């Protein structure tokens, strides 16, 4: 597939390890992906596979014992990992912003919504209090909060979960960032609110010229919003392709397993598939392919040597020894 879009963010061989007392946890171990301008990249994977750590590494927000020890994060043609803390502070919020998983805890309980939205505006654009507060009201209107003039002066506990997530989105969008990272923005909300928030994000994305990285474990969310998808497993990308390819031609057994484990309205499926086992303990990853303990295609080769991320087509990368078998199996179902 041809792609002439400009690359906004490129991650090359990112390695973020946690140096704990029990040993080194390789939370992110050699992740590569690209985010094109104006596109949405979805990162999918189970809990603990390194999705959020990747996001925090991009923002450089990890504290001891977590440390990014290798790789490059190229944002607007410059390596973020080489920037100073002061330069980083100008990037955070202004050029890269983040939406957090739990709106309940991601808002400071003792500060008003208005203050928290206008804080970054005042930091990055030196606006005075009144201008910032006006902008905050505008943003709240944009994210669909009713009576914003009143809401700006309210505290987080006076807002419902959905409203808080809307306020979080307003905070993240306040400085018109080029890249927005949404770390499971809908996970903590109930289903009807999830739909509303997704709808809101989609409509905002149309006005918003930047790119979005959507981190989630919910394939439904990804199907709604993403252009391209990276599937992560145990700190590594196992499959990377555009949305259509992932949903129609999954070529990694993990992606295949994920797709067959959700109910789908567009397909006849007698029984939902289950991926046996759990994510291996990051302190003791298995030898060879990290998915081999749970994979139904696994052979002796998988247990000995880990496959590289290889290109099936220019835009479809897979990390598996048995791509052909998976594709065959997938063709029967999808």
């Amino acid at each position, binding site marked *: 597939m041809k792609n002439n879009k400009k690359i906004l963010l490129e991650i090359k061989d990112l390695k973020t390890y946690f140096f704990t007392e029990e040993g080194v946890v390789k939370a992110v171990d050699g992740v590569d992906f690209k985010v094109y301008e104006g596109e949405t990249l979805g990162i999918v994977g189970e809990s603990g596979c390194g999705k959020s750590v990747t996001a925090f590494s991009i923002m450089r927000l990890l504290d001891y014992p977590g440390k990014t020890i290798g790789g490059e994060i190229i944002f607007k043609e410059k390596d973020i990992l080489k920037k100073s803390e002061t330069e980083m*502070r100008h990037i955070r919020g202004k050029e890269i912003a983040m939406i957090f998983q739990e709106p309940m805890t991601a808002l*400071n309980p003792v500060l008003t919504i208005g203050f928290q939205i206008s804080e970054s505006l005042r930091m990055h654009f030196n606006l005075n209090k009144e201008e910032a507060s006006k902008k905050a009201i505008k943003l709240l209107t944009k994210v669909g909060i009713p009576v914003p003039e009143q809401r700006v002066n309210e505290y987080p506990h006076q807002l419902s979960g959905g409203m808080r997530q809307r306020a979080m989105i307003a905070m993240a969008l306040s400085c018109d960032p080029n890249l927005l990272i949404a770390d499971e923005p809908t996970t903590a909300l109930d289903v009807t609110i999830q739909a509303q928030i997704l709808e809101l994000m989609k409509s905002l994305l149309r006005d918003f010229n930047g790119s979005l990285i959507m981190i989630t474990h919910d394939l439904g969310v990804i199907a709604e919003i993403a252009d391209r998808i990276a599937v992560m497993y145990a700190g590594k990308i196992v499959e990377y392709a555009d949305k259509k390819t992932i949903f129609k031609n999954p070529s990694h057994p993990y992606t295949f397993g994920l797709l067959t484990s959700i109910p789908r309205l567009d397909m006849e499926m007698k029984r939902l598939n289950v991926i046996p086992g759990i994510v291996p303990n990051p302190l003791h990853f298995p030898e060879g392919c990290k998915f081999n303990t749970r994979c139904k295609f696994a052979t002796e080769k998988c247990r000995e040597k880990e496959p590289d991320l290889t290109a099936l087509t220019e835009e479809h990368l897979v990390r598996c020894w048995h791509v052909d078998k998976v594709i065959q199996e997938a063709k029967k179902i999808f």
Partner: protein
Amino acid sequence: MNRILKKLFSNVTSLVGIILLAFFIVIAVFAPVITPPLSDDHYQIPRMSWDVNPQPPGSPMSDNMKQAYEFMEKEVKWKKAICGTAEGGYDIFYGLIWGTRTAFKIGIITVTISMLIGIILGSISAYFGGWIDEVLMRITDIFLSFPFLVAAMVLTTVLGRGLDKVMIALISFGWMGYARLIRGSILSTKEETYVMAAKALGVNDTKIIWKHLLPNTIFPVMVQGSMNIGSMVIMAAALSFLGVGAPVGYADWGQMVSFARNWIIGSPGNAGQYWYAVFYPGIFIVLFVLSWNLIGDTLRDILDPRLRGEL
């Protein structure tokens, strides 16, 4: 805020504390009206006579004292020692009234400054962690290893007499508790997602500490502070009692108890002869400290969400 005030006034113990505190505030504010000063240094307790023995309540000013004040062209508005005089003819009533101002000064200034030092050091230490934390906390440990009263005594002895020196000594060895307290709460609060969210918005460290962390962590320190106002006053009184505090004749309750040291037990067969010399300053100290403790207790009940039953 309204809720706090309502709670303060609805609780009996806190009400007692507030009434006592109000009583002391009125005394401190109206000190020049209640007892107009006789010397240029308003905190100097005037003498009613040259008697070594304490004189009982109601004894008049001696004639040669009156002449002395007339000679200095001072108008003597009160001619009787309402609460008696202490050793050396110092008027107890005057000392009580102006001593209230001294007590407020000592309590509020020492607690405010040591709280500030503690908050600044503690929050820097907790927020940045690493070697900064290590260095600051070891310094705190060194200061904590001195017994408070002994350290304060040595320092005032070195610095010399005077109320300001007492306060310097009390501040020097009084900030560590606050530093430890705020460090502990910031260590737990800084792991909250909203701190991470603020960082993700590019908020700088000073603002994160000041706007995001301190408002969430400062209440225990404030409670501690309000309770410490009382104990700081006791400490200052103790230093004065030991003779290293306020200068002789300075209106300070501790000093007045110190005046009474030789007269606590009266003459043979009349043990309570000089009761007034120790009773009045003593009861003032007790009530003052009690009022702050009661208020501090109620503040803790109000501000601690665990005791409030909301968590």
